[in-house]
């Protein structure tokens, strides 16, 4: 029998403006930077601020052939509590299709799960992580826009799929582009570009600080994968 592949089929649900799709790209690029595999499917809809957004990512040590939305995820990340409390989601209830032994990471400052939700998730042997990722983003980066970074940090902190450096490379690519060489020629850039670039570098640093902190929280809280990765 072949050795079991580490394979995560991830559904990310949030609301418009939270960087759901952006973080899905970063997740995929971090896998790529680590020499692993990922594929990404955004949901085609009419996304707008505070309206439901979903993105799907598959991540693995092995090549991925499968296409299409993830209907049966083994990881679900909820970027906004209203996905659950207000039903701001294409997928209702938010855990529909979840496989056994899966991981659910929810950004919230209060317990948003009903007793019924808890029973279903418990029956599925789900590892539930609830944390105020927005609060963390505000504390560290001073903006709730870094919520997605905290969520990414939790996911990679728990699964240990890639190292911190790989994530940094992916975030850098996202904010500064692939070809930007910070050391060469910044002096010659006019002040407008320089200012813009400086802002981008600051943004990058803040984002990385959030991820670093979320790694630390995972360690402090002792969140590790409790069971064998589920078949996905």
């Amino acid at each position, binding site marked *: 029998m*072949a050795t079991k592949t580490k394979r995560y089929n991830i559904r990310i649900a949030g609301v418009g403006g939270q960087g759901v799709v952006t973080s899905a790209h970063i997740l995929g690029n971090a896998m790529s930077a680590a020499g692993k595999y990922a594929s990404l499917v955004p949901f085609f809809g009419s996304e707008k601020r505070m309206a439901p957004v979903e993105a799907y990512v598959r991540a693995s040590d092995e090549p991925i*052939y*499968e*296409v299409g939305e993830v209907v*049966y995820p083994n990881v679900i990340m909820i970027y906004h509590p209203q996905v659950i409390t207000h039903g701001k989601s294409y997928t209702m209830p938010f855990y529909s*299709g*979840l496989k056994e032994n899966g991981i659910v990471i929810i950004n919230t400052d209060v317990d948003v799960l009903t007793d019924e939700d808890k029973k279903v998730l418990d029956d*599925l042997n789900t590892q539930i992580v609830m944390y105020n990722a927005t609060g963390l983003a505000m504390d560290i980066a001073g903006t709730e826009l870094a919520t997605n970074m905290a969520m990414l940090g939790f996911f990679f902190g728990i699964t240990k799929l890639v190292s911190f450096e790989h994530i940094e490379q992916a975030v850098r690519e996202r904010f500064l582009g692939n070809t930007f060489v910070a050391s060469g020629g910044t002096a010659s850039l006019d002040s407008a570009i320089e200012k813009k670039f400086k802002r981008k570098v600051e943004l990058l640093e803040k984002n990385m600080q959030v991820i670093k902190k979320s790694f630390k929280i995972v360690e402090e809280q002792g969140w590790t994968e409790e069971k064998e990765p589920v*078949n996905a």
Partner: protein
Amino acid sequence: MPEQKVVDIDYLLKEAPRERHFITGAQAMAEAVKRANVDMAIAYPITPQSEVMHLVGDLYAQGYLKDYYRAEEEYGTMSAIAGASRAGVRVFTATSGPGLLRGIEAIASWPGHRIPAVLGVLTRVVNAPLSIQPDNIELAYLLHSGVVLLHAENQQDVFDMTLAAFAISEMVDVYIPVAVATEGFFVTHAKGYVEMTPEDMKLPPRDPYKAPVPVTDCEVPPARIQRDAPVQKSNFMSYLIHAVWQQEVWSSTQRAMKYIYKYLNGPIEVVNPDADVFVVASGCAAAQGREAVRYAQEEGLNVGLVKIKSIRPFPAQEVREALKNAKGVVIPEHNIEGWLSKEVKAAIPNSGIVVDGPRVYGGMTLPVELIMEEIYKILGIKQEKKVVI
């Protein structure tokens, strides 16, 4: 554009060095057109479409093609393609869903007119209620048209099959159109790794005089079949001419098979030939089938995959041979009718081993879990279902 040098067909398709790129399926099709020494492209940008003809328009702007224009609609596109091809140039067009059906009267006349055109089919829903998602029922309409029909699983297949299509369609003993189909969105809009031949190499130009029917020019009037239409003769002559001509067209489709072996490693691919249960699939359903084989392996089940690359000619003999020891066959499809299932059932002596499905339609995702469910049923494995839907 780089200066392109003409290289031998066999060299370009089989030996030329390749470089890895991360591109969409639509880009992969256009990249193949770029290397195929295409003279002319004609298209109508109906919705839904893919980016293919837009990208081929860019190729024209860069100088890779001699001519490109927007037809008035698909019937006009497909008719103009026939005219250009009959005049001796190499042509390409692509369409999707409703556009394919609008053009199909003209397309169905291509084989009889011996038009070696290459047609990209990027599948979309065709029936009401309106949707623009990647259902592939439209391919069923092509099955009886006489064209060679290749079905691509991923971006790499799109590139390889499109490039090979130009070579196959112009072989003197084939000389009929080749359609290369793949699913919209899942393949056309998604990126995958594609090993591509160098940009500065292209196929030799079309030689219009290496043909079973003469091309039309100022000296040569249209082939006898058009100049002296059978319909103008007695009924008896009309039957006979049409009959022999159609026999020849369908024999041509069969003769394409040897080139499918030569340039595409055969009409089928078999993974785990000694399996108990096979997933038989074409297009991007084959990708889902590959994942089912992986799942099954992890669970210690002996499951294989038969990917069918060529739908016309249909590799009946090869499929029969591959499935001769199968206990069960699962055929996942992206359409409600199950056209592939019907082809496979007709090809094997024990069609009762074929499970009808799973099928998804309206263009929705085909989860691997649905394929696994059928495999469990065949193997008599009771799965305790805990998933909440």
